[in-house]
């Protein structure tokens, strides 16, 4: 049996790997090709045995060798059970700007609803001329648009306000993903219902058990908001709101209401639970910012990172430094890189598609000298806004805001290539004193 054979030989190989792996404190050491047997000189089981039949599974799966490329959870990031919780996207393993649907980060407030699309409706009511109900099929028949946009939870990096705690890119920045979305512009639906002039706000509500709702300004709904039913070419996954989700490009993930069933137009905001008790930023002095919608300009180096260190590099090796930049306020204009913790900076190159409110890849070709680095990136967008240092952000926002942390992220690259999450800043008390909100 081909499968048995291959499994046995790989078990053997795995054992050989783990024996040679050098265990660092927390740094992960990637597998090196085994030197014992030249894979070219030996016959591989997959070349001397026919493979699986094409109908082995009507819906395909990644290779079993990719089983470590998965969403991960941490108990500190969820309430008591895994229904009001978050699963982090393995962004350290992603290439390009599109996140596969099975890896898209997942945040739910009442568990993942499994909705029957035949029983699902979208209602538009409130301050409209003609309240309407749409079936999912209705929406799919309408003229559609497809756009590539990231969705990011505003609590991304919230564990780092008082200092770094996770030594993992997946857990520092994994509350975000980027996909191509297909659906109907909300303004079509509002035109069909007829917006009354006094309508200034729209309540968007989900049909899952949390009935999560948020207030949005009508301006966004008439601009680029969409009701989407597809993600990367297929129906939304249940964990992304199947069958319908609101997409508000560039804005807080929470505003992209999943399992969308209702849009209600009104003359005042609603002050839902997720826009008062949560998703508000407490600032020094005790007042909190509310209705802060866009995700600010941001970036992170994805290669190297704590999960993908440079332990395999020799002095003098050429390597590509790569990362992701994104802004909810427009298109990424550029990214700078620093090797000394932000003392001096050089521009990196953008590569691939550069789209508004979408992940953008940046690149820098570097010669590794085997000397310790403090490696960081800093993005700026077409509005001219530049990603702040940790100190600049804390001076304004304090450390209790929870949400919307977009300060520069720094990797400490050690001489042996290990990568650790660090922060470049003065003691918090000194920042606060300089900013004037701590005596």
């Amino acid at each position, binding site marked *: 049996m081909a499968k048995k054979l291959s*499994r046995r030989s790989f078990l053997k190989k795995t054992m050989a*790997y783990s024996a040679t792996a050098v265990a660092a404190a927390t740094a*992960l050491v990637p*597998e090196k090709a085994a030197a014992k047997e030249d894979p070219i000189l030996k016959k591989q089981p997959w070349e001397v045995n026919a493979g699986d039949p094409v109908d082995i599974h009507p819906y395909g799966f990644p290779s079993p060798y990719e*089983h*470590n490329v998965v969403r*991960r959870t941490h108990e500190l990031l969820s309430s*008591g059970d895994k229904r009001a919780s978050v699963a982090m996207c393995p962004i350290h*393993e992603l290439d390009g700007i599109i996140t596969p649907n099975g890896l898209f980060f997942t945040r739910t407030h*009442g568990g993942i609803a499994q909705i029957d699309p035949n029983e699902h409706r979208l209602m*538009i009511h409130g301050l409209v001329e*003609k309240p309407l*109900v*749409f079936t999912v099929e*209705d929406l799919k028949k*309408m003229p559609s648009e497809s756009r590539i946009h990231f969705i990011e939870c505003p609590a991304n990096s919230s*564990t780092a306000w008082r200092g770094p*705690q996770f030594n993992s890119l*997946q857990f520092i920045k994994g509350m975000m993903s980027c996909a191509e979305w297909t659906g109907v512009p909300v303004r*079509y639906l509002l035109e*069909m219902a007829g917006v009354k002039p006094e309508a200034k706000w729209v309540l968007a*509500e989900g049909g899952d*058990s949390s009935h*999560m*709702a948020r207030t949005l300004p009508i301006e966004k709904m008439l601009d*680029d908001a969409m009701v989407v039913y597809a993600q990367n070419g297929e129906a939304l996954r249940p964990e992304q709101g199947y069958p319908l989700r609101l997409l508000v490009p560039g804005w807080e993930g929470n505003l992209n209401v999943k399992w969308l*069933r209702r849009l209600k137009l009104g003359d005042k905001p*609603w*002050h839902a639970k997720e826009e008062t*008790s949560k998703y508000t930023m407490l600032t*020094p*002095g*005790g007042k909190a910012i*509310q*209705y802060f919608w866009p995700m600010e300009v941001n970036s992170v180096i994805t290669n190297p990172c704590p*999960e993908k260190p440079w332990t395999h590099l020799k002095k003098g090796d050429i390597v590509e430094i790569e990362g992701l930049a994104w802004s909810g306020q427009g298109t990424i204009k*550029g990214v700078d890189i620093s090797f*000394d*913790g*932000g003392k*001096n*900076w050089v521009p990196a190159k953008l*590569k691939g598609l*550069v789209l508004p409110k979408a992940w953008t890849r940046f690149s820098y070709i570097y010669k590794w000298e085997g000397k310790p680095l403090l490696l960081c990136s*800093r993005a*700026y967008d*077409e*509005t*001219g*806004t*530049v990603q*702040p240092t940790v100190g*600049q952000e804390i*001076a304004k926002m*304090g450390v*209790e805001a929870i949400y919307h942390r977009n300060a520069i992220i720094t990797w400490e690259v050690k001489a042996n290539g290990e990568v650790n999450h*660090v922060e470049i800043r003065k*003691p918090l*008390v000194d920042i606060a004193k300089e900013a004037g909100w*701590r005596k």
Partner: protein
Amino acid sequence: MRKFRHIITTLSIAAIAVVTSSASASEKMVKLKDGRVIIKTHVLPFKKKNIDGSAPYKRHGEYVGPYRINPQAEKVAKKLPYGQKATKEEIKAWDIDVRPDGLGLPVGKGTVDEGEALYEKKCQMCHGDFGTGGKGFPPLAGGDHDSLKNQLLDPNAGDEPPVRTIGTYWPYASTIFWYVKSGMPFPHPMTLTDDETYALTAYLLNVNDITFKNGDDIEYLDNKNFLNVVMPNHDGFYPDVDGPHAKQNIKNLLAHPEKYGDVTYRCMKNCIKGKVPVVHITNELKGFNPPMSTKRDWGGMNWILPNAGHKESFEEKVYNKVCSACHSNKAIGAPMIGDKEAWAKVLKKGIDKVYENAIKGVGAMPPKGGTNLSDEDFKKVVDYIISKSK
């Protein structure tokens, strides 16, 4: 401020999206008095920005930003033959939101005492006695409003964190009513009556020491006296989004990035004076699920189909969907599935008593776990849990 303009560099910025990019620009490096060398970015003027501070899409012919569109689609939107008129009954069934001005408050009434009894039955197992929390779910009461001024910068210097509960942080009582009605109790939302929701809201305000604005104690809440509640933190938020200038207020914040810590220059040289201050991880958070690994080893087919070849039984299905919310969560205090000791203790009462409790409800557990299964079917589920706990 004296400025030098000697160092000029050209940044080539990839312009892939033909319509949106305004070509690359030569940007001036400026040396500041303190030695830093910066580049000021081209800031989009406030007037041109959208309400959220974003750059508007450039529209040009068949382009919106970098995307091509079908301009005909826009024109026909109004004429599309889809969507049906929502009936009054349909709107009423789904119109569950409640606004601070009272819009959406249903007719009803509930007392603090009724709320307390309900709370102990349906909420206490997760939110603790009197809303004190402590079981992995958020506390609902406690803390001082003044604590919101706290910033936990240095615990060793005696800094305390701010405490965000209903009493200290929530600006409106309407949010409690709406959230309890639509989202609680967590395993079975939308099962409370309006009277029960008033009662629970009254109780939650009571345990937070909140009174009516004239100082009278809250003994009951109904749709008439509800608007007399003013929360301690009602003016704790900005910008003002309720008045006539709501949208300007919001734009005044969002379109001024310097107000929330962002900047509009790129420091390129000598950005940090002296030694670079590095903060390392002191208490590393570990315990990822599944454990972190980047190995490309043979995972077998089971990682893809963890239950391959395993068909979920009826009992298992009910357990996973309904019972697991409490019986797989240590924090709640129900006997955990697989906990032999706990179940042995339960079974001491005799299996008939266990069935009876499960069917009629016991303590925090609703009758039949909130399902509408037959007695016989629910007994099977109980048997399943017991079989897994031996």
